[in-house]
């Protein structure tokens, strides 16, 4: 196949896109150039389906030092420090080769943080699989968790929490999203914008091999039954090389001649050179014969499209290139000057002495025609839960919920991750409603959560997404953190299906409305489309990575309940059906009533909780499984029981297990509880002193009376 148009079609470019390339170049592209466009105009790299939607999101905010378009968003967290953070998906590679797919997902997002000049200090993961024990699920879970552990543990970045969901709708297309955060001084931020004609383009890191060629294009297709044959599209991670490269990169700054840098992730050196040139409005002259290679016989396209891991491309002041090469070699990292900055605005690539590609950087980086998908006028309405009578044994319902794979103790996963390396982890997995880390030599810190409610978004993508944002606000506040920004990982089916595209537009509309209501920006993120398999599309699954600021890490409420303390319940007590795990378990329906959402109430409650930090000792937001599950978890984490009473209701089952917004359990010394409740009431927040901690049982007067041992056995999920 030598006809470029045929090659273009084979690599996934549409006839319209091919015409746009010919138009932009003023000629037909050659074969190598077709490969460049196929990679860069893939959905993964170009955002051609979502760019216009995402442009509607609020992207500015107080304290935002770098926003969308940067490697990772950067937010001021005080004392001259900024947190760089971003979420990234590695869904398709993980479906094919779970260990390497997940490992390189972590490696890739860590490089984004390093590219910003930040030292990585935390990783979180948000995973969706099919039902445990069915099909490939157990194999995928073991590989994905192993890959996340294998990369992060060796690299030396703590995994501070996450969420794992089991739902048969992900069986054919698991989701593997990872969030990384790093710390950087305000004056240490790096840029990707190349500049300075004659400056050196320096390659640093692992040598280039044939792994992961056109992985970004692979990520932009639906998974087919024979996708395991796509292993050559999956990259291979080397955390040891990644760690060495990180140390070399972080110790090489503007004082050493650094002008710009970008990691070589999706679409490898092609993406780095085109985006760096476009960002700086300059051109680059690149000689592929100078690229360090791992294997012989690689042609220009192989080198340009390889997604070999642990590599960076830098622009270095011309007079400093020798000392730069020395620096990287001293760190045990391959380095070579592979080109020069020019003033042409074009990326010109040589191989074997010949020019093999000559393209305008801006056309490649920003020129993909918007996809123009059609959205369905209406979404099919989800069927509400059929009516059912309240179960007679509410204790049995509680035990069933605690044993649910999404709710049960996740220690068998989190115990495989190092959560304390780096000496910043104030609250790690299973210790509080959010992960809390401290700044160097300070009582100040920041907190992170990652929210993921695909089941709610499947019922109503708009309300489900708002519920995610509400949970982020609430969970951070429970850990004493004030939400300041989010990064969004959007995971979706094929945009070519009008219903799926309508769901996507609803998710983004909800993000915009919710963020404006909360007064915070999105700092960037990731979009993964075509998450479909022969089993169908996944539920729309936005992953919200949220950052909050903690004024005093010594006062953070934990998942803690102490004998004799008073127990407060914030939020309205309701007994009406709403989307919930309870509704699903009783009716078997994956649809059901719409999720209950109230962002105003979330915001009010969060403000109050932040004002009460220090007086409130323990806090647990209600979430999946409702208030009874949240209180049970609080008791189980401390090994202390509780006796509470709730107002009379027609449907105690919905009171206990319904999932409603802006509900939080908290503990406080008995002599302060009434004053806290009164303060909440004055702020317009329903709040009751519900009972007292102590004993070995969880009692809800008149409704529930369960020994903690029985709840603990259920919560262990049957795992040792």
């Amino acid at each position, binding site marked *: 196949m030598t006809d470029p148009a045929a090659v273009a079609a084979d690599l996934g470019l549409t006839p319209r896109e091919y015409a746009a390339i010919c138009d932009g170049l003023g000629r037909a592209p050659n074969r190598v150039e077709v490969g460049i466009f196929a990679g860069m105009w893939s959905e993964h790299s170009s955002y051609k389906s979502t760019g216009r939607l995402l442009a509607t999101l609020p992207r500015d905010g107080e304290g935002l030092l770098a926003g969308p378009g940067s490697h990772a968003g950067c937010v001021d967290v005080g004392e001259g420090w900024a947190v760089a953070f971003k979420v990234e998906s590695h869904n398709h590679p993980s479906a094919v080769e779970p260990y390497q797919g997940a490992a390189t997902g972590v490696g890739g997002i860590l490089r984004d943080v390093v590219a910003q000049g930040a030292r990585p200090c935390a990783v979180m993961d948000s995973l969706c699989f099919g039902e445990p024990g069915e099909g490939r699920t157990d194999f995928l879970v073991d590989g994905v968790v192993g890959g996340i552990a294998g990369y992060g543990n060796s690299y030396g970045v703590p995994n501070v929490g996450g969420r794992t969901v089991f739902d048969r709708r992900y069986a054919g297309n698991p989701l593997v999203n990872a969030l990384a955060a790093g710390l950087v001084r305000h004056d240490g931020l790096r840029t990707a914008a190349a500049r300075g004609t004659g400056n050196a383009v320096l390659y640093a890191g692992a040598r280039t091999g044939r792994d992961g060629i056109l992985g970004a294009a692979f990520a932009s297709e639906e998974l087919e039954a024979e996708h395991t044959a796509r292993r050559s599209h999956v990259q291979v991670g080397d955390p040891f090389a990644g760690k060495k490269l990180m140390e070399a990169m972080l110790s090489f700054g503007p004082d050493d001649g650094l002008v710009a840098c970008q990691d070589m992730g999706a679409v490898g050196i092609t993406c780095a050179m085109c985006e760096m040139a476009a960002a700086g409005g300059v051109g680059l002259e690149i000689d592929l014969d100078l690229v360090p290679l791992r294997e012989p016989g690689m042609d220009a396209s192989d080198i340009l499209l390889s997604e070999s891991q642990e590599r960076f491309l830098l622009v270095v002041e011309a007079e400093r290139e020798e000392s730069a090469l020395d620096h990287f070699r001293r760190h045990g990292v391959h380095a070579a000057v592979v080109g020069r900055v020019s003033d042409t605005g074009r990326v010109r690539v040589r191989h074997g002495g010949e020019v093999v590609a000559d393209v305008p950087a801006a056309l490649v980086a920003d020129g993909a025609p918007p996809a123009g998908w059609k959205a369905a006028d209406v979404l099919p309405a989800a069927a509400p839960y059929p009516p059912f009578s309240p179960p007679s044994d509410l204790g049995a319902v509680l035990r069933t919920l605690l044993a649910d794979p999404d709710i049960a103790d996740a220690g068998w996963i989190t115990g495989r991750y190092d959560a304390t390396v780096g*000496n910043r982890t104030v609250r790690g997995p299973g210790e509080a409603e959010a992960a809390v880390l*401290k700044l160097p030599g300070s009582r100040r810190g920041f907190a992170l959560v990652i929210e993921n409610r695909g089941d709610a978004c499947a019922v109503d993508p708009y309300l489900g997404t708002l519920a995610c944002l509400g949970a982020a606000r609430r969970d951070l506040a429970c850990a004493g953190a004030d939400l300041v920004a989010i990064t969004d990982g959007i995971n979706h089916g094929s945009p070519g299906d009008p219903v799926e595209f309508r769901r996507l537009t609803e998710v983004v509309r909800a993000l915009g409305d919710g963020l404006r209501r909360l007064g915070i920006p999105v700092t960037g993120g990731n979009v993964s489309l075509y998450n479909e398999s022969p089993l169908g599309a996944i539920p729309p699954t936005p992953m919200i990575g949220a950052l909050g600021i903690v004024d005093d890490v010594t006062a953070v409420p934990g998942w803690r309940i102490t004998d004799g303390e008073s127990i407060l319940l914030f939020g309205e007590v309701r007994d009406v059906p709403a989307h919930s795990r309870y509704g699903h378990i009783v009716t078997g329906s994956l649809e059901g009533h719409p999720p209950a959402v109230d962002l105003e109430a979330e915001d009010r409650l969060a403000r109050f909780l932040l004002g009460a930090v220090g007086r409130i000792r323990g806090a647990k937001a209600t979430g999946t499984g409702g208030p009874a599950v949240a209180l049970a978890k609080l008791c189980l984490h401390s090994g202390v029981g509780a006796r509470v009473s709730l107002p009379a209701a027609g449907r105690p089952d919905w009171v206990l297990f319904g999932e409603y917004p802006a509900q939080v359990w908290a503990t406080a010394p008995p002599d302060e509880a009434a004053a806290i409740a009164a303060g909440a009431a004055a702020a317009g927040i329903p709040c009751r002193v519900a009972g007292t901690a102590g004993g070995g049982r969880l009692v809800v007067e008149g409704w529930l009376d369960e020994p903690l041992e029985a709840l603990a056995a259920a919560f262990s999920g049957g795992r040792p």
Partner: protein
Amino acid sequence: MNAAPPAAVIVFPGSNGDRDLFETFERAGFAPAYHLSSEPLEPGVRVAGLPGGFSYGDYWRAGMLASQAPAVRSLPDLVARDGLVLGICNGFQILVESDLLPGALAGNAPPGFRHRWLEVETTPAAAGPWFSGIAAGTVLRMPMAHGEGRYLHPDGPGAIAGRMPLRYRANPNGSMADAAALLDESGRILGVMPHPERASEPDIGSDDGMALFRSARAWLEGSG
């Protein structure tokens, strides 16, 4: 007030606990400096710390390649000068691989990397530079984070009875005699599998690990 004792934090390619160890030495009143493993130690160093991590990626047996590093080969000279050596986690593995401590660290039982907070207890063997002033039976809370921490000695538990200063209160990895740490005959070389350098302040979960560092500093100043 004596001058802070110089401490060398040996950095192997792939070390990832070096910064934590540096900060904890500093907090305990040492004057720490990073030292590349490719060079022998300087004569002025009083204590050397081998940090946790994955030296050389630990793609081979953990600590095997790092045990050949010039800095490790210079450790006997440091001990001969009355200096001290602390190997934590991967550092302990390196000390065992280099025969500065006896026995072996095998894969955990049950297998796999595990991280968790746990408690260790000092035994009657907890004496000498690293444990002066810490009573036997003292419980210390610190995290573990390793995949190859099952301590084994070919001659059985009796061979290490007098040299095992810390025991796990609940054995997480199948170590012989619940051993969490080991001393050499002189008591100056300590290998410890869980992480005392991560238990350095209450805000991050515990400051119990500081006791070992403070003990070493007091001993060095006393022997001064």
